[in-house]
């Protein structure tokens, strides 16, 4: 209730408006574009698709390996903090950072995915490993090496879960990889942005369709037997990029990100005025907008997922309805929110509205899907009521707890996304980060990114606290 009230209050403060004179015409043109896709527009389209897959694979592979190693030492506090920190920074921010010194080298894209993913993998892997049955390890003959014990008694027990989660993350990785194109890496987003900003909706439609097909057919082409082949081949398809100049790396860390008052020898006094100015003019408005937007999007997500889950629930409607419901939810959840927000911003003009709708559609699609699937395992008594009564008396009460669990789990994810949407021109933290980078003020950008990260960590802790308080359990989603 409290959350709902906050969101309603947020609505009054927030800037939501359709500023386009003719939004529906644009939206119509966009749908016509999707209906008449032009697959032969850009010569680079197939290459972009290939690069998207390649960056996804290499990034996720590297991330999962590092994450696995981190998971082994995850019980140590510094490791936990480190992992929380690296996963609190969005892939796009990482990419923006690496672009400053690696430039258009494939490493930029690979690390932008691998680093935050390593943090997430470390956390989830360690949770999975902790849940494995401890009994077999206790029974091993004393003197068994730690590694052998781990290989025999721990890994096999959670192997399936580790694999399922990694495969799921691979899908997320493809989405992340596509988005990286928006900041200039040679993946799908690069061409999508170009086509959209020029109003070439048929080209953009073709790219979106190809992307959905790519994601939807993953079970067909990602087979355990083929994985080694993909992982070996992927690095060859990252593209050449430009050689790394190591001097740039050194310069970035020793000069660029050093706050300018320190660089110019103005000392601590200069630093505090500088920081104060940064806080007042950029950080605080950014934090405020980020929080407002996050809360509205969170509640909108909740409402949408409650509305959406009957679409795929077997307790409502026939197979035709359910199939179309599935298609809708698949599209909603496999479109990265960044792309959704970008599309809606192009169509409706800049305000918080497109961001809220995009976040709610994407996250509501995910939660709706999970909850809907959960209702399919519920067996109702034969004389159970039908229609709305069935919905409100039989189903919602049964799934309400896991619904809340998912929602609070995604709280932090929504906030991370909200911050990043600022790059598109909504005044959240990402806007100020992007502005600082556009002005070549990396010191400011770094401080703002750190603030964003701490905000995410804070919400993560709060969300976890609430879930524990309400005794809610979930599997991680992305």
């Amino acid at each position, binding site marked *: 209730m409290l959350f709902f009230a906050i969101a309603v209050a947020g609505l009054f403060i927030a800037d939501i408006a359709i*500023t386009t004179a003719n939004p529906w015409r644009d939206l119509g043109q966009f749908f016509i574009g999707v209906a008449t896709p032009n697959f032969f527009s850009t010569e680079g389209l197939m290459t972009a698709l290939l690069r998207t897959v390649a960056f996804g694979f290499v990034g996720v592979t590297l991330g999962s390996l590092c994450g696995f190693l981190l998971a082994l030492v995850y019980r140590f506090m510094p490791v936990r903090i480190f992992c929380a920190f690296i996963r609190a920074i969005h892939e796009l921010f990482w990419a923006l950072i690496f672009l400053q010194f690696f430039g258009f080298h494939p490493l930029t894209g690979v690390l932008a995915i691998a680093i935050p993913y390593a943090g997430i993998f470390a956390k989830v892997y360690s949770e999975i490993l902790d849940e494995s049955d401890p009994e077999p390890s206790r029974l091993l003959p004393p003197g068994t090496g730690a590694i052998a014990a781990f290989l025999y008694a721990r890994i096999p027990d959670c192997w399936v879960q580790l694999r399922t989660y990694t495969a799921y993350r691979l899908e997320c990785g493809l989405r992340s990889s596509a988005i990286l194109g928006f*900041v200039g890496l040679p993946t799908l987003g690069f061409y999508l942005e170009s086509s959209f900003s020029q109003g070439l909706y048929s080209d953009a439609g073709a790219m979106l369709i190809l992307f959905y097909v790519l994601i939807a057919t993953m079970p067909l082409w990602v087979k355990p037997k083929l994985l080694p082949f993909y992982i070996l081949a992927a*690095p060859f398809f990252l593209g050449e*990029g430009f050689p790394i100049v190591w001097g740039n790396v050194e310069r970035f860390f020793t000069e660029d990100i050093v706050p300018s008052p320190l660089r110019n020898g103005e000392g601590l006094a200069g630093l505090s005025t500088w920081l104060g100015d940064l806080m007042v003019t950029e950080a605080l408005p950014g934090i405020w907008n980020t929080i407002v937007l996050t809360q509205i999007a969170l509640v909108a997500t909740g409402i949408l997922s409650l509305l959406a889950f009957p679409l795929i629930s077997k307790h409502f409607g026939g197979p035709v309805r359910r199939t179309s419901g599935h298609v809708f939810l698949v599209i909603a959840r496999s479109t990265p929110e960044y792309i959704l927000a970008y599309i809606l911003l192009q169509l409706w003009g800049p305000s918080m509205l497109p961001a809220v709708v995009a976040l709610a559609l994407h996250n509501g699609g995910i939660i709706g899907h999970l909850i809907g699937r959960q209702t399919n395992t519920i067996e109702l008594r034969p004389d159970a009521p039908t229609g709305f009564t069935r919905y409100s008396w039989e189903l919602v009460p049964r799934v309400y707890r896991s619904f809340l669990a998912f929602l609070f789990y995604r709280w932090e994810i929504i906030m991370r996304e909200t911050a990043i949407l600022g790059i598109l021109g909504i005044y959240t933290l990402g806007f100020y980060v992007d502005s600082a980078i*556009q002005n070549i003020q990396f010191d400011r950008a770094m401080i703002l990114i750190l603030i964003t990260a701490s905000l995410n960590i804070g919400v993560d802790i709060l969300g976890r606290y609430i879930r524990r308080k309400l005794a809610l359990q979930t599997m991680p989603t992305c």
Partner: protein
Amino acid sequence: MNIKQIRKWLVSGFLALVATSTATAQTFVFTAIPDEDETRLVERFRGIADYLSEQLEVDVRYIPVKSYAAAITAFRNNQVQLAWFGGLSGVQARALVPGSEALAQGVEDQAFYNYFIAHKSTGLDRADELPEGIRGKTFTFGSKGSTSGRLIPEYHIRERFNEAPETVFSRVGFSGNHTRTLRLVESGTYDVGALNYKVWEKELEDGNINTNDVKIIWKTPGFPNYQWTIRGDVDDRFGEGFKEKVREALLNLDDPALLESFPREGFIPASNDDYEPIRSVASELGIID
């Protein structure tokens, strides 16, 4: 299971290194600020790449980037050696790369100007100074790092109203580039916008503007704008006198189709000092330190 994975990882990591270290070493690479529709930029600068490659007898490659900052960063990081910058981005880039210099500018870039344009619903008409009537309207700049899309319009708005754009207008946005500014004001997403006159005239000539929906309300005074800027260390890398060869090639560019694609009448020599006015305005607005 584990050993297999480690092996896979080692092999693929090694291959990644091999694959990336063979990237081209002696290609002369240039970029341009993404101030217009990308298709147009790619078409224009591929032509330039072919031309330069012929004149300089080295491989020349153009890379498109997604933002002004990306162009500056690529130049600073020596991943590109030459760039077609705007006034402001050129000043920023040259400040970051000691020894780099403005080589050539378009004939028109000596006294470039901007149009403020407005959607018909505002009822605003062309005037000799920025009309008071734009107060309270919505307004879009081009890119955050643009001279004619951001710096000069903001400068004139502050001069005229003595206030920040955020307080003059009810909403301030950044369209991304000049073409987008035109489209957004034409469609009424924003009431008012400011853009580079060259883009306006080129689009007008191509019949891409519905002049019933959008019109010019003010023309700014002139300022120095676009220029080719080159890194100071190109001679070390591509041979003695390379910088001069590039300058010559640019100044001698007389292919009408190529010039038309910019569109510029031709290129004339430029120097870093030509952009001092831009630097001081940017510094006044706090865009550069």
